[in-house]
C-alpha cells in the first residue's frame, strides 16, 4: 500500500457513512482513473466495501470501511465499566463525576499496564 492508498482509507474510514467515490478523487487531489486504481487495491485487500449509489441520476459508489468486531474491552477501565452504558441521567459530559471516577480508574490501569510491560522488558 502506498501513502495515497492509506490516505484514501483514512478518508473513507473517517465517516461511518463512508465517502462517495466521485468525491474521493477530489479530496485526494488525484484524477479519477488513479482513484479507481486505489479503490481497487482497497477492495482487493477487503478493507473497504463498495455500494452502488445514484447521485442526480449518475451512477457512483459509496465506499465504506470494513470494521472488525467491536471490542467490548474498550468500555472497561480495569474492571470498571464506563458509566455511560444504560445511563439515564441528563448528560453533561464535562461535569459528570461518575465519568471522572472512571477516568481515574483508566489512568491507574494504564499506569499499571505500562509498569507491567516495562517489567516484562526488564526481565
Amino acid at each position, binding site marked *: 500500500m502506498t501513502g495515497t492508498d492509506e490516505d484514501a482509507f483514512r478518508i473513507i474510514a473517517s465517516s461511518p457513512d463512508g465517502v462517495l467515490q466521485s468525491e474521493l478523487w477530489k479530496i485526494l487531489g488525484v484524477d479519477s482513473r488513479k482513484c479507481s486504481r486505489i479503490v481497487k487495491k482497497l477492495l482487493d485487500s477487503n478493507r473497504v466495501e463498495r455500494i452502488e449509489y445514484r447521485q442526480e441520476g449518475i451512477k457512483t459508489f459509496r465506499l465504506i470501511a470494513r470494521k472488525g468486531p467491536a471490542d467490548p474491552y474498550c468500555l472497561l477501565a480495569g474492571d470498571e465499566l464506563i458509566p455511560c452504558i444504560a445511563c439515564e441521567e441528563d448528560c453533561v459530559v464535562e461535569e459528570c463525576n461518575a*465519568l471522572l471516577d472512571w477516568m481515574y480508574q483508566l489512568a491507574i490501569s494504564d499506569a499499571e499496564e505500562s509498569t507491567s510491560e516495562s517489567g516484562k522488558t526488564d526481565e
Partner: protein
Amino acid sequence: MVSYEEMLADKAIFAYLHRMIGDEGIELIRRFPTDKEYSDEELAEVTEINLNSVRNTLYTLYEHRLARYRRIKNNETGWLTYLWQLELENMYDSVSKDLEIILEKLRRRCKYESENAFYNCTNCGLTFTFSDAMDSQFVCPHCNNQLIHFDNEPLAFALQRRIARIEENLGHV
C-alpha cells in the same frame, strides 16, 4: 458459534449486559431455553424469575437488538401473544453502536480537560476550573480552604489513549 454461557464468561460482555439488565436479567439469559420461542409468562415459569423482571429484561434486550419477538393473534379471543428468542449474536453490533456514542462523549470530555486548568479543595474534594477558582479568589466557596492546582494531565492522556483505541477499533483511523 460462541454459546451464551461462553459469552457471559467474558468479563467485558458480562459487565456490559449486567449494567443493562442486572442480576435477574443475567439469570434469565443463563436459564433461557433455546429449543423454541417462549412467551414472557412461559419464560417466567420455566426460569422461575419474576414476570416483571422477565418483561423488563426482554424489552431492554430488544432495544439493543439482543432479543426478538414474533407476535401471534388468537383469532377467537383477539389476544396477542409475543414469543421471544434471544439474539445475543448481535452483541458486537450493540457494543459498536454504544462505542460510537461513547467516542463522542470522550472526545468532548477530553477537549474540556485539555482546554481548562483545574483547582482542587483538599478538604471537600471539589474541583473548580481556573475561572471559577479565580472568581472565589482561589478559596473553596464551601469550606474556605485554599484551592490547590490539580494536575489533570494523566487523566487527559489516558482519555486520549482510549479515544485512539476506540477510533482504531471502529475503523475511524
